[in-house]
Structures are given as structure tokens and as C-alpha cells.
């Protein structure tokens, strides 16, 4: 069996929901440009060598509907011979696509795969355009509620596991601070593919025009930010609740992709392997507290690998909500590592955004480039998943 290696991992900048840099650009277009940017970085690879394109997407409908994987593949100029598919496990879709690609390559079923995720939340709402929960599903607690609002689950985690409002706000503030510092230091430049985005403008004569511009940096960071201001916000999910806009992830547009291939292929065409996804696990939990997912998936994947938390150099734990991210960090006993800057070292989704199906691939790009900067060995990408799940993957640098 041949090992599957990642030779490059890139992402678009995260664009803020409806007011950000990607708000007027179609989701498939963002995906196409990131894929083109990826291909441009590896001229050694012949386009006809790409066997499959796997795209994770949480609400694959409307402009990111049909078969987004195939649309992005052909849109980016890959030949007809390159296949494409779209997969969905909500917020872990981007990581799941890399895991599936790894498995396929290792099994010998594919030689070269591009895997990642793509999501435009500015255009496709949470729940999708046609939200149709089952009318006969029992909502009285006798059945797990797969339709529960994410905000409610975050309030549940805060209440059930005693994560205080103050700690959540501080966590949110630190996320913004780290992201601000990282952008200022130019840390993301190596992983970002600038997007030629669109915006609509009204000219002085009243005519509307579509203009192109280059969007090249995450635009969701709020810094400076003040705890007193954060403390004033009210929860939209619960009367007197703790979960607010300032301690929750932002809705975001973006795409991210990795290039995977057999070790032999990389060697044959002269590409240096960057890393590999060594282990991957998913774990289920109650949908009503889906945020605890990483607290289950991370121990599971560590056990699988025979490692402990100490063996991991950097964690990227998705900040869907401060309540669940902080709880997960505490549950697996790495709060000291959070303080030391080994967990979400460059800020997380509260500052940089959470483009659902793209997030797993986006965090992979962030993690691998951070590990490279640190010349470190191992990292974990993990996230909670709507419906009550967690996913975690262990990356090893090569």
C-alpha cells in the first residue's frame, strides 16, 4: 500500500457574511479560483493526472448545488477526465473530504486527488433555502432533535458544563487579538490564494455596475475590542443567555483545497511532500449539545494513534462557539496549551470566520503552514458538527 501525501494546502481569505469581500461573488467561483491557484503553485503536475476532486459543502444547493465538485473541477480548467464529487458532513465536510481522499489514495484507488471544501454563507442560509424538518419527528425530548438550532446547542453547553459568560467573552477577545497579530505579521500570506472578487456599485448617475477587485486578506477580525462592550450584547438564542455575536463564530464565505497524491507520484514529478493525514476519527453525541464533539473525537483519534495530547504540537479546534471550544479544550486537559498559544495560535473562527463545509480544509491549510513555520511535527484539526458529532484528524509533517 502506498502512503498518501499532501503536497500543498491553500485557502481563500474568509469573507464576512453579506458585508465582506466575497459577499457578491458566487461560491463556485471562489472554489474555482482557489483550485486554479493551487494548480498554478504545482506546475510539475499535469492537469490530466488529477483523478478526482472532492468538495465538502454543508448546504449543497443553489449556486453551490448540482454537483459542486464536478463544477469546480471543470470550471478550474481540469480536463473532462478529472471527476468530481460533493460530500456533506456539515462543519467537518472539508476535513472529511481530505480523509476520504487519503483513504482512496492509500487504497490504491486513486493516484492524485484534490480535496477540500467550499461554502458561501452570504448566499445560502443555515438550514438551506428550503428548510423542511420532519413534521412527525418528536420534539418533546423522546427523540434526539436533529433540527435544533446551533445557538441553542451552544447555550446548552454553556449551561450544562458551566462555561461562564466572562470566560467565553475573554476567549472571543483573545481569538480576535491573535488573528489581528497574525494578519499584521503576514502569517497567512503563504496559504492564501487572492480572489478576484466582484462587488456591485451604484455610480453617481444611478447606474449599477459590477466591479472586479482583488480580495486577499481575512476581513472578519474585530480589533481592538473591549470586554465591557462585549458584555453588553444579548443572546439571541435564550432569554438571559450567554451566547452572543461576540463569542460565536462568524458566518463566512470561503474555499480551501489540498493536493494529495501517492508518495511515489510526488517523487516522480518532483514535488516535496508537506504532510499527511495520519489518523482521522468521528464521534457522535447528543445533537442538543453537539458542541462537545471535539472533546470526544480528539481522545478517540489519539487513542487510535497511540498518542497523548502532549505529542501534539499545534491544535486547530474550530471555534463554532466559545462555549464549546473552551469546554472541549478543558475536557481534554489542554487549557495550559491554549494559554501557551498552541491551540488556535493565529485566532479561530470567532475572528476569522467559519465557512461551514470549507472549515476543515481551511483549518488544515492554517495548521500545516503553522507547523511548517514552527518546524514542528504533529497537529490536530478538530471541530464539532451539527446533528451531534465531532471530527478530528492528526496531521504529521513530512
Amino acid at each position, binding site marked *: 500500500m502506498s502512503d498518501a501525501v499532501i503536497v500543498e494546502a491553500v485557502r481563500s481569505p474568509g469573507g464576512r457574511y453579506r458585508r465582506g469581500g466575497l459577499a457578491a461573488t458566487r461560491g463556485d467561483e471562489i472554489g474555482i479560483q482557489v483550485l486554479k491557484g493551487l494548480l498554478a503553485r504545482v506546475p510539475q503536475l499535469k492537469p490530466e493526472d488529477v483523478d478526482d476532486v472532492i468538495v465538502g459543502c454543508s448546504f449543497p444547493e443553489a449556486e453551490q448545488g448540482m454537483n459542486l465538485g464536478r463544477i469546480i473541477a471543470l470550471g478550474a480548467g481540469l480536463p473532462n477526465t478529472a471527476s468530481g464529487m460533493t460530500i456533506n458532513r456539515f462543519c467537518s465536510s472539508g476535513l472529511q473530504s481530505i480523509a476520504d481522499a487519503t483513504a482512496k489514495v492509500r487504497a490504491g484507488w486513486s493516484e492524485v486527488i484534490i480535496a477540500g471544501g467550499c461554502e458561501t454563507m452570504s448566499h445560502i442560509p443555515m438550514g438551506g433555502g428550503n428548510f423542511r424538518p420532519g*413534521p412527525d419527528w418528536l420534539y418533546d425530548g423522546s427523540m434526539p432533535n436533529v433540527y435544533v438550532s446551533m445557538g441553542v446547542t451552544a447555550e446548552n453547553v454553556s449551561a450544562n458544563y458551566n462555561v461562564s459568560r466572562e470566560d467565553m467573552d475573554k476567549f472571543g477577545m483573545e481569538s480576535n487579538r491573535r488573528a489581528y497579530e497574525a494578519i499584521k505579521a503576514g502569517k497567512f500570506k503563504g496559504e492564501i490564494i487572492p480572489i478576484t472578487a466582484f462587488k456591485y456599485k451604484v455610480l453617481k448617475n444611478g447606474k449599477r455596475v459590477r466591479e472586479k477587485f482583488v480580495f486577499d486578506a481575512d476581513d472578519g477580525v474585530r480589533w481592538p475590542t473591549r470586554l465591557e462592550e462585549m458584555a453588553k450584547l444579548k443572546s439571541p438564542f435564550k432569554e438571559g443567555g450567554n451566547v452572543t455575536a461576540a463569542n460565536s463564530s462568524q458566518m463566512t464565505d470561503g474555499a480551501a483545497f489540498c493536493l494529495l497524491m501517492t508518495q511515489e507520484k510526488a517523487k516522480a514529478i518532483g514535488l516535496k511532500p508537506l504532510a499527511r493525514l495520519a489518523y482521522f476519527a468521528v464521534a457522535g453525541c447528543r445533537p442538543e449539545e453537539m458542541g462537545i464533539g471535539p472533546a470526544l473525537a480528539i481522545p478517540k483519534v489519539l487513542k487510535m494513534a497511540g498518542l497523548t495530547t502532549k505529542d501534539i504540537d499545534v491544535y486547530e479546534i474550530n471555534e463554532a462557539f466559545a462555549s464549546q471550544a473552551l469546554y472541549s479544550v478543558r475536557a481534554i486537559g489542554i487549557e495550559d496549551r491554549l494559554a501557551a498559544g498552541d491551540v488556535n495560535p493565529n485566532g479561530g473562527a470567532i475572528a476569522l470566520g467559519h465557512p461551514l463545509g470549507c472549515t476543515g480544509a481551511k483549518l488544515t491549510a492554517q495548521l500545516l503552514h503553522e507547523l511548517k513555520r514552527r518546524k514542528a511535527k504533529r497537529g490536530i484539526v478538530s471541530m464539532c458538527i451539527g446533528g451531534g458529532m465531532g471530527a478530528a484528524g492528526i496531521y504529521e509533517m513530512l
Partner: protein
Amino acid sequence: MAYEIRKAAVLGAGVMGATIAAHLTNAGIECVLLDIIPFEFTEADKAQGLTEKSPAWRNRFAESGLAGVLKAKPAGFFTKKNAAMIRTGNFEDNLGWLADCDWVIEVVIENLKIKQELFARVEKVVKPDCIVTTNTSGIPIRDICAKFGPKLKANFLGTHFFNPPRYMKLLEIIPGAETGPELVTYMTRFCEEVLGKGVVVCKDVPNFIGNRIGIFDMSNAIRLMIDRNLKIDEVDAIIGKALGRPGTGIFGLLDLVGLDTGGHVMSNLYEAAPEDEMREVFVPVEFMAKMVELKWLGNKTNQGFYKRTKGADGKKGKLVLDYRTMEYYPATKPQYESVSAARKKADEGVATTLKVMFNGTDAAADLTREYLCDNFIYAANRIPEICDTIVGIDNAMKWGYNHQLGPFETWDAVGVQAAVEVMKRLKKKVPKKIEEMLKKGSGSFYVTKEDGLYFYDFEKKDYVKLEANPRIILLPELKARNRTIRKNQSATLLDIGDGVACLEFHTKMNAVDDGMIEMILESCAIVEKDFSGMVVGSHAANFSAGANVFKVLIGIQMGDWDILERLIAEFQHANMRMKYLSKPVVAAPAGLSLGGGCEMAMHGAKCQPYGETYIGLVEVGVGVIPAGGGCKELMVRLTEGLPEGVIEAGLSLQHVYAKAFENIAMAKVSTSAVEGMELGYIRKTENISLNRDQQLWDAKQAVLGIAKFYRKPKPAMIPVMGENFRGMAEAILYNMRQGNYASDYDVHVSRKVAYILSGGDCAEGTLASEQEILDLEREAFLSLCGEKKTQDRIMHMLNTGKPLRN
């Protein structure tokens, strides 16, 4: 010259200017709002990245005026969306915008020189037939326009709004010496018909009518308080509802207006009216001067005559000032025998309670007598100085100060002769004209004769007929002239002329009862046969506050489900009868139009709402659901007008029905007719009456407008989402329950709403008949009536007037 106002400019964006602009947009008039540029460019501005050229800096005053009115309570706009009709700018850069304005109204600071300088610039840019007015309350019109050219002088007058302009009915029009008479006629009509105001044409005298009489009224009350050694809250308890005055009392009102403003108007009046025999009362008393010095200016500084407090436990308290020690003490509820006696007779109307107070024997009655007599004498002495007729003064006080009766009407209520005797006893100087009037045998200021209302004219020394406005339909007058067609204890059908009938409700709060339903059905039969159409409306404050829940509760307690079912079925039938009558029915809702009231208003061929219409389906508050066709009709309204075939092609109605669900399950009520349109209870194509007095006439015109070619509507087939909507509602309700926004019982009631809106057991895309939805409404209503918690909610509402959350 034919004037026509389509676009206006308001100069000055303080509270008054901005709220006037807001009200103009309520009337559909586009507005320019200008103010000065800020006095200096500060470091803070620079830090914000502004320059002296930035519009954000230059237009700051106008912008902040607009922002202020968007936050104002009560709201200045019918809907915040109206703000888009206001364009903000400044006097330096944007005076040119005035060139295409039909009306320019100046509302800048009360400083003659500043006003004159501004008008000199305005004169250069406005078009020749532009109407130019000032909102001054204290500066003579003749001084402001002294330097105008003849053209502008002819187009200039005073338009004095009362605060807040949206809600206060009074608008004083003050023509200058050279104002064209046709302009006065036009502006009077415009302000009445378009802006909905009650216009009183005034003379160019200090403080015109409203504030002249009003300020005397308040200043004199303060003087009497000190003379009689009374306390502030005592005076407010006496000069209140029993005397037909607003519940705030005199000092509550002064706190609202602001002591600085109030004091300013008083001293202004003292200077401007040297001949006034009561001039000395306008000198601010010592303790008020002290209050101004301490900046205890009223509500805007959080303390004035009263001070609201909030304890550590979050409990709210109210303190009142002891003006002798200048210290606050907890407000009490002073009790007086006469006030209690009056309260017991409140149902008989203000004329009765006034008499009780005036003829009482306690300290409250003593104050009432002297206070009212002073008012009577002062008002009588102001004719013809400030107004030629008693009618102008009475209207000004009713419309500008919310007095239920003007001074002369009040005088009539207590008896002219009786008051004169009290005056003599109190050694007051009875005005000669009153003695003359009584000597002539004219014992009251107003008399109703066969052909209408007459008032006493001091100059003619006789009664003069009050000229009727043909646009004001007065139902009591029509009843007196035998225009009643049919009536019972709950409603009356009247002939309002030109082949149009009017169905008037007159139960308490116009609550829907069986008598009303019976009259709807009878009226429909009569109108179908003998009339071109029907208006449904009245003069009552509220169109209808909903079903008579007391009767529903009795039905429940008697366990008589048949009666309840029949009642609901009849109400549905009555509403459907109106909707499908072969003659057009135009509903004229105003004030509260809730629950059953909303349902009736929705079942006309058209609706002609008053601007201040508070409409909504609020049934869940008492644990039931709209069952008079409210759910059904909202479903029709929100889905009508869809292109053919789109439902069959798979159009999703989820957001449409989510809106209907939110409206009903959260018992949303509009704060204006425009918001009623936004909620979907009034069609957006309807016209809104801003003048309540003319609403029935407007509705009658609407009937006549469509009667000629009227065909009753085709039965609606309503596209529904079936079980898919139920699923959606369940998911939403789960989240609301989790977030504690809804109780278990709220969820239970909302589920019933969802089931009705879903169209029952059917698939998405089904077309349901109106009757199917009505049947679902009835079934849900009856099943909820059988639940203990619904009964608790009804009981609680009857006992406290407030909804119970259980």
C-alpha cells in the same frame, strides 16, 4: 394661484424640526432636512478620519436630528422606512435644494436675527410660488417677515406645530398682514386633509392661542398651589382626569416639556404682553428659577417636579419635589372626597365629573372652583384680542393641550350662571361680555338647534351657526336627523348619503358580541338591496378591541359548546358575507383593531385606515387563535397575486408562512396603519386617512369610487405547505421553548396556529378553500376553549386587562 405641496424642506433639525419632517413623510411628502454645519472641527472629528469637507461632518446636525427621531418614543415615523424620504444636508452647501420645494418651513432657534438672516438667503433660492412658513412659537410673524420682498410676504405665514407633531392635533396658522387669503385657505385645507391636523387660524399675537391660554392655565395653577399651601402631587391629583385633563397633571406635563422651555415661554409672554391683566403670573416663581439653576429641568435631566428612581432591587419608585424645602419625598396618592366621587361617575362623561368637582365641598373642590373661574375669565377676556370666537380657543385647548373640553365648553358643563356666582363670591371680576350674554337670556356658549350646532358670538351678541365641513360626517348628527336605518344595542346602520350606508359599532371598546354579528348580517342584506355600498366604522377611539371574551368565558363555564361553536360560525359567516357581498364594503379601522376587530377590518372589499391604527391578531394572549377568518384572510393576503403556475412549479412559501406564523403566534400589533400594511393586515394599495374627523368621508368616497364597476371577488384558493409547514413550525417552536421565549402552553397554542396555517393534513402545494381553513380555525378555537390554561388566560385578561403567560 394653485398651490400644491409635493415636496417640502424643513430648516432646522432639532427635535421639533426632525419630528415635523418625519410627520411630513407620514403624509407621503418627500422632505429635505437642513441645519447649520457644526461650529468647530475638533480633534475628535479628525480622529474619526473626517475632514472639514466630509458630508458626515458638515451634515452632522441634520443627521443626528434624523437619528434622534428614529429613536424617539412615541415614534415620529409611521414606519422607520419613511426615513428614506428625508434627505439631510446643511445650510451652506444645500440651500439650492430648496429650489424645487413647494413648502419651506423654518424651525430654527427662536432668535429673530438668525431667522431673518436665514430667510434672506431662502428668499433668493425658492421658486416664486413656494410657500414659506415659520414654526415660531414666540416671535411675531410681522417681525420675521419685515424685510421680505412683496412676493415672499404674500407666500409667508406661521405654521405652529405642537409637540409631538405626529400625535398632537393642533396646528396654529398665523397669517401675516400681507399673506394671500387663498394661501391661508389652501394651507388650512392641506394641513387638515393631508397632514391630519386640526387647524386654528390665529392672530399675530404673543404665543398665539394654545400657548397663551395654556401657559396661563399652568402658571396660574402654580400660583394657586402656593397661595393655598398645596403640594405638587396634590395639585396633579386634582387637576387631572376629573377635570377632563391629561393624566400627567400640570407638573407631569411641565416635566415632559422641560422647565427651561416652559420658563422661557412664560418670561417671553411676560415681556410680550404688557397689557395682559394677569401678566404677573407669568413671572417664574422663585422655586422654579432655582430648579432651572440646578438643572432640574424635568424628564430630560431625569428630575424635575418628579424624579423617577430605581432601587437596588430594580423596583421603580417615584419621588416628588417639596418646593418649600427643595427636597424630594416619595410620591403619595392624595385622596379627596370630590375626586373619588367624580371617579365613580366617570362613565357618565367629563361634563358630569366636572360638575361633581365644581360643586364639591372639600379642598380639592375649592381649588377647582378658583382655578376654573380664573381660566374662564382669562379666556373670555382674550376675545377678540387673540381670537374672534370661543370655538377657536376651545379647539386650540382640546387639540394642543389634550383637554377634553375647551374653557368655554368646560364653563358650559359647570353652568355659566353657576360659575358667575362663584366668581362673585370669590370677588373675581366677571367679564362684561359674559354679564351681557346672561342678561340677554343666553345661558350657555353652545346650543344645538335642529340644523346643527350654534356658538355664542360676542361681537354679534347672538348665536351663530358653526359652519360644517362637508368632509366631516357626524354620525350622532345623522341619527338626530333620522338617518338610522336599523339598530340594536351593539350597532347601528345609518344612511350617510349618496347611496352609501355606514355600520357603526357601539359596544364597550367595540368588543364583538352577538348583537354586532347580527347587525353585520342584517346590514349586508339591506345594503345589497338598497345601497351602493357600506362603510364600517365609527367615531369611537377604537374600531374594535376584539371579541367579547367575557361572553366566551360564560359559554365555556356553562359548558355550552354548541353556543360557542355557533357564535364562531356566525362571526365567520358575517365576515365572509361582507367579503362576498355584491356591493363593496369599506372598513375604516382606527385605534385598536385587534383580534376580531382586525378580522372584520380584513374582510372588506377595501380598507381605509386612519394613520393611527393599531392592528393585529392577538388571540394567543388569551390562549385561543384567530377564528373569525383572521388566519384564513392573512393566508389569502400573503399569497394573493402570485403568478399562475408558480405553486405547481414548486415555489416555496416558507418565508411567507413563517411571517404569518410570527404575526399570530407572537401577537404582533402595528404601531401605525403603515406597519399594519407591513404585517400584511392591510393591503399596501390602500389609502390612509391622516385626518380622523374625515375618515368616514374618505371611506365613503372609497365606496363610491369602486361601486360602479364592482364585482364581488372570486373565491380564493389558498396555496398551503401542508405537513411541511408543521415540521418547520415544530423546529422553530422547539428553539423558542429552549430559549425560554415561549412556555409549554405557548408552544401548545402556537402548534394549533401552525396546523391551521399548514392547511391541515395535506401535501405541500395543495390549494385549500377558504372554508377548509375556517373549519380548522373553528375546531382549534373550540379545543383550546376546553383547556384549563386558556380559561386561566381569559380570566386573567378580564381581571387585569393584561395577558397571562402560563
